[in-house]
Every structure is written in C-alpha cells, then in structure tokens.
C-alpha cells in the first residue's frame, strides 16, 4: 500500500506537465491536492491517529453537526453518509469510520459559496461509529453516529 502511494506522488509530478499543456485549469487543483494529500491521516490504521491527523484529537462534540445515515446498512459496500453543519464558518468536513482498516475516509474543503454540507457513499467493514469532523474558525468539532452493518439476504 505504501509503495503505491509513493508512486502516486511521483505520478503527481508528471501531472504538472499535463497542466502545462493547458488541460482544464482544474487539474491544477487536483495536482495541488495530490501534493497536500493527507498521507499520514489516510495511512493511519488506528482511529486515534486518523483523528489526530485532522486535528480532531480531543475535539469538542457539537450538536450542530447532523449526520444522516442509516441505523442499519444492508450492505457494507455502499453506506450513504450525509453531514450537515450548522457551525458558522465551516471550512471543511471529514468522515471517519472508527473500525475501518483505515478509518479516515474523506476530507472535503468547502469554499466559494458551498453550503456546510457533504454527501458520499462509503464502504464499512463492520458495525462502527462514524464520525463527522468539522473545521470552523480555526476550531474542530465532532459528532458521531453508529451504523450497524448486516449480512444481507440469505447470508
């Protein structure tokens, strides 16, 4: 796994050439993203390390973060998770599935008129708490929700 990620970083260098060729300007953002990709966080196997990597160790729990997701998911391969923040100045939202082999699932920076909202379908290996981590005004807040994963159908 580590090897693959290193090779990604090498490829990221190659991508700058594509940007220079004048492909969509957006690629610059994606390439820049590659350079700033939270490697420590995404490589972390321990929940605590993943949380630390996004500055969420010891973060305040907030009732102003709403996680919408099923109580019971029929299929761990597609678990829909929606996060809405009512915290003023929300800049980013992360999703962390505590018991996943690599708990940090996504970090999304929001700007230029984006609502303090994110939605993505994720994989979960087992029943677990899922955390939403919100950065707002230099502070970090969290909320969590348990999602039960069941073996569907006839097993």
């Amino acid at each position, binding site marked *: 796994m580590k090897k693959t990620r290193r090779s990604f970083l090498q490829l990221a260098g190659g991508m700058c050439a594509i940007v220079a060729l004048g492909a969509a300007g957006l690629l610059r953002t994606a390439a820049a993203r590659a350079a700033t990709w939270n490697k420590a966080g995404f490589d972390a196997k321990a929940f605590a390390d993943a949380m630390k990597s996004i500055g969420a160790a010891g973060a305040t729990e907030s009732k102003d973060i709403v996680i*919408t*997701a099923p109580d019971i998911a*029929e299929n761990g391969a597609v678990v829909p998770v929606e996060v809405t923040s009512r915290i003023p100045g929300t800049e980013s939202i992360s999703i962390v599935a505590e018991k996943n082999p690599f708990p940090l699932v996504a970090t999304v920076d929001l700007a230029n008129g984006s609502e303090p909202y994110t939605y993505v379908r994720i994989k979960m290996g087992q029943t677990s708490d899922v955390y939403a981590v919100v950065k707002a005004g230099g502070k970090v807040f969290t909320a969590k929700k348990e999602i039960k994963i069941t073996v569907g159908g006839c097993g």
Partner: protein
Amino acid sequence: MRIMRGVAAAAACFACLAAWGTVAAQGQPGNGLDVGRQMLAEDNPGELWVERGDKLFHEKRGPNNASLEQCDFGMGPGKLAGAFARLPRFFADSGKVEDLESRLLKCMVELQGFDRAAIIGTRFSNLDRASDMEALATYVASRSNGMKMDVRLDHPREREMYKVGEYLFFRRTGPTDFGCVSCHGEEGKRIRLQDLPNMSDRKQMQAVIAGWPAYRGTHSTVRTMQHRLYDCNWQMRLPDLGYVSDVSIALTSYLNYQGNGAVIQVPGVRR
C-alpha cells in the same frame, strides 16, 4: 466468480433472493433501514451503464465490424422505443419465444460475428471484468422508460411459455425444497431483513418488473433479469441456470406478464 464478489473492505455480502425490490411497505425491523434505502434510491450509478450501453450499441464492433443498429427486438430492425415493454415475445426468425438478452445475444453473434460461447462466458460482470451485455441490456430496456409493460400472449408459443413459467414458479425442487413461491407467495415476508415482494400481488409484481435491469449495490454493477433468475436459482442450491435457457425465458414471460401495466423505469436500484 461468486467468490470474487466479496468487497474486500466490506462484509462479504452475497447475493440473495431478497434483492428483487419491493414496494415501500416495511415491517418493524425495516425502519432502521429505510433512511439508507431512500438515500441509495436517490442517485443511481446505473445511469453510467445506460451511457456505456448506448455507445456499445451504436459502435461498429466484432469480427463483422457491425453495430447493433439492425437488431430486431420485435418492433422491426433498430426500433428500440417500446420494444422491451413487449418482451418476451415470439420471433418468427428463430421460431422461439425470446427475451431481451437472448435477442441481444443473437444479434451479437449473427450481426457482429461474436462467438456465442464467449459472450455467454462474460454475460455477467464481476469485480475484475465489465460485461457488455449488462450495459447493452440496460440501454435497450431504458428506451422503454415511461412506457407500460405490455407482454401479450397472442401466439400459441407465448401462451405455452407463460404457462410453463407459471408451472415453474410453483415447482419445488432441490435440497431446500424451494420454488419461487416459497419466498414470493405471501405478504409481508422477509429473508433476514430484506423484504420479499409478494408476487401474487399485482402492484408488488409491477414494482419489481418496472426496475430490472437494476443497479445492485451489493454487486456494484447493473444486473439483468437473467442474472436475477440465475441468482435465485443459485440460492435455491440448484445448478447454474443456463443463460437464456427455457426455464429462464418461461419465468420471465410469466413474471413480466404478471407485471403488465408497470411503468418501466430502468435501471432500477436494488440492494
């Protein structure tokens, strides 16, 4: 193949009889599931299969470098609008009752020159390999979206297939003693937490028929009616059901006819 389906980071969720799709009515334990079901119904990755099928259909492919634009689904060569709504039906050119997939298979072999066994070998995708058939069937079926399922029993062979399908629906066999009816004959039943459509109820049958082919979350792909039947058959512990076999086409005739009036909206979304 089946083994490869397990999503590594997720629970190995295998296919089951319970993924036909049901109308909203949920029992007590269903409540914890409803939010997820609604959220998953909102966005349908199956739309990506319609796009891919569209491209594959019109592209010149195969040894004959031909597109499928001359394929006849019963409304005349190349006429797709409403064709799926009338399938299965009798075709004079083959002398058989055929469904969507058997017609696609025939055209891929006869028009494009593909090897029949090779197409059958890749009829269902897995996590390592996409299936052209799944994309093509989804595309062609989607050309009947908004129309009502309207299978007719005008030809004697169509009536035979329908009655054989009915016979098979109730036919119990194999190590589990199951027939289709064992799981789909009563109201409000579940296998584990998955609701089972009661196929003796026209509304529920229509809800099923309206949405196949369907994007299945557990499989991360679109599955066709042939796959749905293959999969049930697997869960019943029967041998691999032959692709476009008589059993599969008879059951499709029976089920689609029972679902007549369903407004087709393909691809559906299923567990």
